[in-house]
């Protein structure tokens, strides 16, 4: 049996993390969190989370950067915005989750082999390359990268899609493909935050 401490220590903090987070558009009101737990109560996914949304708010504000960026919570958030509209302090919790996901991806500290961050990456890559998403191709790429055996378990779904005329692997794309690249390059060049 492995003995682990169950409380956080002052030395686990990354001072300045919370302050910096609250400067991001949409994250400003985190300061006012009263820890009421309404977010955790309305969240349809909190029962699967390692930290509840309320705990993530407290940890993020108190500079526990590593705990929140490595949590499953930020990736389990399905962006349903239930917490955001219910929060009595008008904290945009969903947007804070988005910001934490971005930081976890940028720093490469997200949970390994967890399919959700892989989906986000594959999705954005497909948009960059083609300007549009072809859902089936995206899903197949996701399974190949995370759990190709799991893909076989979905054979019935694949058959249903064929039966209903929805199984196409033809990749949708926009005509002005250069547009996406040029816009993204302009953002990278013009903004220090997005090198």
């Amino acid at each position: 049996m492995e003995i682990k401490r169950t409380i956080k220590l002052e030395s686990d903090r990354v001072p300045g993390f919370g302050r910096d987070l609250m400067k991001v558009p949409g994250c400003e009101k985190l300061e006012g969190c009263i820890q009421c737990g309404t977010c955790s109560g309305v969240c349809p996914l909190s029962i699967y989370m390692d930290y509840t949304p309320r705990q993530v708010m407290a940890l993020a504000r108190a500079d526990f950067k590593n705990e929140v960026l490595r949590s499953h919570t930020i990736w389990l958030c399905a962006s349903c915005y239930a917490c955001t509209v219910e929060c009595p302090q008008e904290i945009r919790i969903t947007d804070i989750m988005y910001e934490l996901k971005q930081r976890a991806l940028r720093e490469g500290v997200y949970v390994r082999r967890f399919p959700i961050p892989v989906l986000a990456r594959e999705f954005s890559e497909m948009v960059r390359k083609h300007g549009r998403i072809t859902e089936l191709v995206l899903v197949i790429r996701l399974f190949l990268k995370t759990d190709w055996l799991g893909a076989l378990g979905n054979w019935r779904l694949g058959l249903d899609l064929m039966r209903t005329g929805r199984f196409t692997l033809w990749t949708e794309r926009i005509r002005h493909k250069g547009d996406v690249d040029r816009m993204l390059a302009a953002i990278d060049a013009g903004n220090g935050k997005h090198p």
Partner: protein
Amino acid sequence: MKLAYFPGCSLKGLGRAYEESLLPVMKHLGVELVELDDWNCCGATAYMAVDEVKACVLAARNLALAEKTGQQQLMAPCAACYLVLNKAKHYFHDYPAIKKTMDHALAAIGLKYDGDTAVRHPLDVLLTDVGLEAVRQKVVRPLKGLKVAPYYGCQIVRPYATFDDQYNPTAMDKLLEALGATVVRYPLKTKCCGGSLTGTVPAAGMRMVYILLNEARKRGADCLATVCPLCQFNLDAYHAKVASQYGPVRVPTVYFTQLMGLAFGLPEKELGLNRSAIRLDWRPEPVPTPASKEAVTA
């Protein structure tokens, strides 16, 4: 009435039955939709997780393209597109730094966005502009006896409720009643379907789908009506998987536009009803022909 139309990737892919039914229904009501030329993916929820500013810029290209056509209104039927396009517009107005980035990036491809394009959901257009009376007048096959659970999902009214109530939206309820259907009380109408979690974390996703289907079943609904391609896919395509874990719950899920098409008496093959894994078999009474009318009056 004429609007620019942003179909989004799903309506060209897994959710094509939504477009297939939306276009004839809108045409039937005199709403002209002009597909935005060379539109790009809105970014959905996935791109927001990678880079929120870039996601807003991608969405803004569509808003700028719509403005360029001279159309001040853009119809976005997919819930995710509707939210993201609205969010980009909000960020454009609320955060000067993001507006600057948007202007800069759009200028790089010779576009400009003034922040005016109104992003409209079909339900909004139907209730606000077309009006329920006009809808009622087009009903030739009332959906009499069909019990429908109205399911709105998350992103139509959250977080930017513009045309309906955030906690208890009723736009689709009213529309379905105008079609002659019986609207079942469905308290889970805005509960999340799980989104892409059905694929990425099936344990969580299947449970969320089961809860929604089972509630509709318990309340005696013949079908669920939805406004979102991902909700429709989740509630339709995973029946077998859900049944293997929780026992059978068979409730077909259709787009509200498909029910409109049935009530308007539009040809069934135009409505994409055969695109579902779990099909709705129920049909309204056929349109009375002059002969049958005479028979009744005689």
